[in-house]
């Protein structure tokens, strides 16, 4: 196992060296539209944005995908990739653990009340505009969980629409957090319903 890791580390070092040595071939060519001051390092079709993060070209990504994924998972590196020549938007590859850590900031604050008028318990999750009600608190919890699952499923099915309009766009990190829950108990914990 260690030998295998050692080999992978050497491969990564080789890959990094390749990146560094194949620099400054195309000068400032590239015309990256995403950043205001892009520093294009050609040759390997990589460039560095103003924040110092390297943008790996699609060809390099294809050729080194295993090493890159290894680095992302084990070294907590975030990799940006995209069309370096044409510029434009990029894609970030990030470890799921790291993403979940970042998403922890988006907390749910459920409002649980008893409605005297209808004699029902009601739960409101304003962050994603989800509601649940029932004769008992347990029933209200069951119903809001079902409703949240339906809302989450619909959010990602129709995400092209939702990312173009407010307020659904602002709900993205919350739905992302929900979608990463593996079990119902984990979901209840994330929703602060335990």
């Amino acid at each position, binding site marked *: 196992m260690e030998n295998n890791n050692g080999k992978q580390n050497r491969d990564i070092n080789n890959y990094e060296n390749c990146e560094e040595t194949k620099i400054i071939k195309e000068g400032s060519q590239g015309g990256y539209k995403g950043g205001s001051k892009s520093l294009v390092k050609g040759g390997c079709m990589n460039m560095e944005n103003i924040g110092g993060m390297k943008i790996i070209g699609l060809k390099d990504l294809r050729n080194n995908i295993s090493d890159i994924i290894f680095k992302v998972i084990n070294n907590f590196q975030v990799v940006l990739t995209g069309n370096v020549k044409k510029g434009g938007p990029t894609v970030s590859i990030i470890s799921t653990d790291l993403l979940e850590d970042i998403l922890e900031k988006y907390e749910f604050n459920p*409002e649980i*009340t008893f*409605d005297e*008028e*209808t004699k*029902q318990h*009601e739960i*409101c999750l304003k962050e994603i*505009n*989800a*509601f*649940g*009600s*029932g004769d008992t608190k347990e*029933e209200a919890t069951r*119903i809001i969980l*079902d*409703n949240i*699952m*339906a*809302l989450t*499923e*619909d959010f990602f099915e129709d995400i092209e629409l939702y990312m173009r*309009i407010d*307020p*659904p766009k602002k709900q993205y990190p919350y739905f992302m957090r929900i979608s990463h829950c593996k079990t119902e108990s984990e979901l209840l914990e994330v929703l602060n319903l335990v």
Partner: protein
Amino acid sequence: MQNRIRVIRGVELSLVNGGAILTTSFRDLERVCKALGLKGIPKTNGILWKGFVKGRFVRIMIHKHSGGKDVPTGTFNCYLKELGFSIAQEYNEFLNSI
């Protein structure tokens, strides 16, 4: 009979017929969603109503077990605003017109 207004959680609720709070059943809420042009999408545990009302995007999930029950006050207030009604009376009038 004279209508009165009661304020719950900052939202005006009309009291009609001498004091009963005007709420709605989930079934009537579905009728209103349909009449407003929202699209009903069947889900495993109910129907998700979604679409634009007065330029604002609305999503309302109605659980299959909620059917005949009344919508609790807090939830009803939120739905009222989302559906573009300022007070419950306005909602009721719309419901009676469909």
